[in-house]
């Protein structure tokens, strides 16, 4: 009879899992259905099945163009997508490049103000981003960087550094100092030991931190909405908001946009995941 008990158990377990999957997928399916519906309004409906299935919203979002003053036509959406991707990658790269040496110093060196410095970094995280929107606007205006990717990257990277430092510091602290010392005895300089041993061992943590910085920048709305007013400079969250923020809310466009917006993120997740091999750091020390 254990066979039967096993079967029942399997059925129960699967039922729970399927229920959980439906629960979390439901809103997403709803967005998908909306994106392919011909109807433009939000109608109450239980099953997420497109009404009057059509590719029109998708075409409208992705195909958005704009006529320049000189009469030429540019692919507006493509440009905005590129803005988002370039700004987010640049943010992650700049943020990580600053955070890695900083975090390493916090993890390994004794210096005056080490503890205070860490607290200060964390304190900056307590302020909501809106609080700095106005000063940032003024700074970028003075630097003539409003409506530029560079300006946005500077703002995002500076806000992403504290958390990245915090995360990477614990990652570096978790790496036994023996590894670096072994490398130095083996003939490495401190810098070589850092590059050849510490960085590779911290790779999973660096990958996660990179992803986090990317996502934060990619999803950021408030600063982008404040600092950008030229639609050619918009990032995707601002574009999306425009679909529903005006007088008539185009939910179908919003939904179609949301799907397109999430594609690069999925791609990145897939790429980064390879670096997060679980337990990569295990086995180097102790028996």
């Amino acid at each position: 009879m254990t066979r039967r008990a096993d079967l029942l158990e399997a059925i129960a377990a699967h039922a729970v899992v399927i229920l959980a999957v439906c629960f979390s997928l439901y809103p997403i399916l709803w967005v998908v259905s909306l994106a392919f519906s011909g109807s433009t309004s939000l109608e109450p409906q239980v099953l997420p099945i497109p009404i009057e299935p059509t590719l029109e919203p998708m075409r409208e979002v992705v195909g958005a163009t704009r006529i320049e003053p000189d009469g030429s036509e540019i692919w507006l959406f493509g440009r905005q997508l590129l803005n988002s991707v370039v700004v987010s990658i640049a943010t992650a790269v700049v943020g990580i490049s600053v955070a890695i040496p900083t975090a390493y110093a916090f993890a390994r060196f004794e210096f005056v103000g080490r503890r205070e410095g860490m607290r200060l970094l964390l304190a900056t995280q307590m302020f909501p981003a809106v609080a700095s929107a106005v000063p940032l606007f003024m700074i970028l205006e003075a630097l003539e960087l409003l409506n530029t990717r560079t300006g946005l990257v500077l703002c995002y990277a500076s806000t992403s550094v504290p958390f990245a430092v915090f995360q990477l510091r614990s990652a570096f602290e978790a790496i036994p100092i023996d590894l670096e010392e072994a490398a130095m005895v083996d003939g490495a300089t401190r810098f070589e030991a850092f590059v050849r041993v510490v960085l590779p061992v911290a790779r999973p943590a660096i990958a996660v931190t990179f992803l986090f910085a990317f996502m934060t920048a990619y999803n950021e709305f408030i600063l982008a909405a404040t600092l950008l007013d030229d639609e050619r400079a918009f990032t995707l969250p601002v574009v999306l908001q425009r679909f529903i923020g005006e007088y008539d809310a185009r939910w179908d466009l919003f939904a179609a946009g949301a799907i397109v917006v999430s594609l690069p993120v999925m791609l990145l997740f897939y790429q980064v995941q390879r670096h997060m091999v679980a337990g990569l750091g295990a086995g180097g020390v102790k028996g």
Partner: protein
Amino acid sequence: MVSVQAKQLIKRFGETTVLAGVDLDIPDGEFAVLVGPSGCGKSTLLRLLAGLERVSAGTIQFGDRDVTTLEPRERDIAMVFQSYALYPHMSVRKNLEFGLRLRKTDAATMTARVEEVAKMLDISHLLERLPRALSGGQRQRVAMGRAIVRRPALFLFDEPLSNLDPALRAQVRVEIRKLHDQLGVTSVYVTHDQVEAMTLADVLFVLDGGEVQQRGRPIDIYREPANCFVAKFLGSPAMNLSPVELRRESPDQRWFAGQFPVATPTAFAGLETGRRVVAGVRPHDLVLASEGAGDLELDVEVVETLGPELTVHGTLRTQAGPGQAYVAVLPAEHRVTRGDTLALKLEHLHLFDADTKRTLRC
């Protein structure tokens, strides 16, 4: 291959002085062991030799080269860490090659040397594995291999066996000694295990309180410990120590330290009645005597049987009644049980000054 000379090494961490003037001199090609209780500064001393810590004062010389301020990589040393410290993201082969690569060794030489060392240590079949796919004993071998492959002038070992199980530990201990005899590279080996210390060392340094308590061949130190600490620390079970007074009934009679007869009074300096001393007796220096003919009487409390030997724990009888706890080691053919009173004869007595704790010798 080099000799090692350290003079008056002092190491402070902030307020605490960990090493308070340590002298080391290790002849070229010898196997030196630093032994001492936990926290006595053994690892710190080794790290000073490696250049992983800076001395607060003192000098270190390898051969005729002053290395006191040199970086680890400039010292031509290799070190085996207690944790092994294998690079977790590199295969065993890459781990072994790491130091050679940094020294820009050409590929052919590198491969040849790695293969040679792998063969020597019997890890050839593990070369492509990552450290996490190795057992503790295999990791230990790789760590040794990584040190050997570099052909350094000096090996440093920090308790390399402490993470192995006892059987493996004994086996690897012998292999380390064999490797040393084969390679002839000067080695400094840190341990708190006295068996490792006694068996491996050409020259042994006993450390305590940030100072070298005694230096010498292991057997000499065992036979003639310089002070109470060394006497108690080396030897298992530990030496029995009793604070007593020197006495003799009349000038023509035998000397006694408390109740322990002093066999060769001429060997001891400053014998005078009433002098406070510490009488030390190794458990192995006690033999069973016929009743009434012993120097001591022991009331047996616990008997541990260890194959060829019995370790007998008991209480020493004195004129004033039961005295201190005492340990004797006897051949296993004796039948000893709890409650027995044994008459024991003393084969050797160590005497130490009660104040300085130093050995009394002429």
